[in-house]
């Protein structure tokens, strides 16, 4: 089917690396947002984090994007807020459409005032671990075509990986394709178990699990399998079994 090609993640990863080199900066979420604007044909990209309970701007490529986030925080509603509370992406092809105005009666008129016409908010999350939201906006009405949508999800996945690396204190790892087994049920089950063992939330438990795997130079999936198989426990005082 259109756009379902396994190589997109690798391709998007290369684009970001090229852009970072061109800008003379390390691979980062900033470089990622700037690459997204060029490659996805959008007007702007904003990455928001949520440390206070509301979206906070981590990086924004333009003023319109900043204003879109600020408006959502001010009125307490909007696509990025919905993404934060729900699970899936919120794709709005026309902010001025009756359905958009009805869904966000306060935010939608403000959004139109900024000049934005379409807004696509993508969650950066691993189950209950909510790292942030990647928002893309355009000044023209319209859907993202299938291929662009696929690429935008690859950008979101790579942004998620960068944020998770930061949380686990693994900045040096950078954007590594499939360096993180986000699709293994074991890893998520083990995260839940470690959260219970150490009395942490899922984000901290996941970061802890990753940091331990890195420190011991073992694959995360193997460590996770040991946790699930109860061959390995994490104790609050840090002692190993």
């Amino acid at each position, binding site marked *: *089917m259109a756009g379902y090609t396994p190589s*997109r993640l690798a391709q998007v990863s290369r684009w970001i690396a090229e852009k970072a080199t061109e800008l003379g900066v390390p691979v980062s979420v900033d470089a990622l947002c700037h690459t997204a604007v060029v490659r996805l044909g959008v007007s702007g990209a904003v990455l928001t984090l949520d440390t206070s309970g509301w979206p906070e701007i981590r990086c924004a490529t333009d003023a319109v994007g900043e204003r879109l986030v600020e408006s959502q925080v001010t009125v307490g509603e909007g696509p990025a807020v919905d993404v934060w509370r*729900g699970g*899936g992406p919120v794709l709005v092809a026309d902010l001025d459409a009756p359905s958009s105005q009805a869904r966000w009666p306060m935010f939608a008129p403000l959004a139109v005032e900024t000049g934005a016409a379409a807004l696509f908010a993508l969650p950066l999350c691993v189950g*209950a671990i909510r790292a942030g939201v990647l928002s893309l906006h355009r000044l023209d009405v319209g859907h993202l075509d299938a291929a662009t949508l696929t690429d935008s999800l690859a950008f979101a996945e790579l942004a998620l990986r960068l944020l998770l690396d930061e949380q686990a204190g693994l900045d040096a790892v950078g954007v590594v394709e499939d360096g993180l087994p986000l*699709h293994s049920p074991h890893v*998520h089950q083990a995260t*839940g178990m470690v*959260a*219970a063992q150490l009395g942490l939330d899922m984000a901290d438990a996941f970061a802890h699990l990753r940091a331990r795997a890195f420190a011991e130079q073992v694959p995360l999936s193997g460590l996770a399998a040991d946790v699930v198989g109860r061959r390995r426990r994490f104790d609050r005082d840090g002692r190993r079994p």
Partner: protein
Amino acid sequence: MDGDRLVETFVELADTLVDDFDVIDFLHMLVDRCVELLDVDAAGLLLADQQGRLRLIASSDEQTRLLELFQLQNDDGPSLDAFATGTRVGHPDLSDAGERWPRFTAAATEAGFAAVDAVPMRLRSEVIGALNLFRNRSGELDATALRTATALVDVATIGLLQQRSIHHHQVLTEQLQAALTSRVIVEQAKGLIAERLGIDMDTAFAALRGYARGHNLKLSRVAHDVITGDVDTSEFLGAPGRTKPLRS
């Protein structure tokens, strides 16, 4: 096959679609009914994410070994073939499937399965995933069972796409990503419950699901509330399902 039960299943599926729709609950019901109606021993539903990787959304049995069997089909296996070709793929006797799917056959045989089928989830030219059926005894899947499986899969596919709009890839993306996230939340909650109650993953899932059903709540909602602490895991003690404590 029990005709009344089949009719009931379609009515139930249709109700789920009309009502407040939850992908995870919907697909779990579907795989459970497959096991019940089609004379198969295990069933799982895999959806392809945007990177083309098959990801398990619902399984009739949450044993780790079975979950792995779905997972490894990203390398070889009937679900991958059904997804890639958009056609039904079956192998009535896994004892001679070693060349076709080396890794999958070894794992499936070790798990005690003798025959396997996969039906693509397809709407026109678009394939979004596959239903995977396992049987303990070898032999072809009965023609009626196969027709029924195909009909169930078609309902599920239309349910997921919800509407045949020209922008269905947007709808699919929203639904699929939400479903994948819900599935991960369920895994995280299973781990939390398994650890706190000293039970295995399968029992933890049964307890989670029993609680959701008993309180008429969505599975993904309960999983979320367990993680945030809004539902206390001690409430799962004595919930329906087998209790198999691993530790005293």
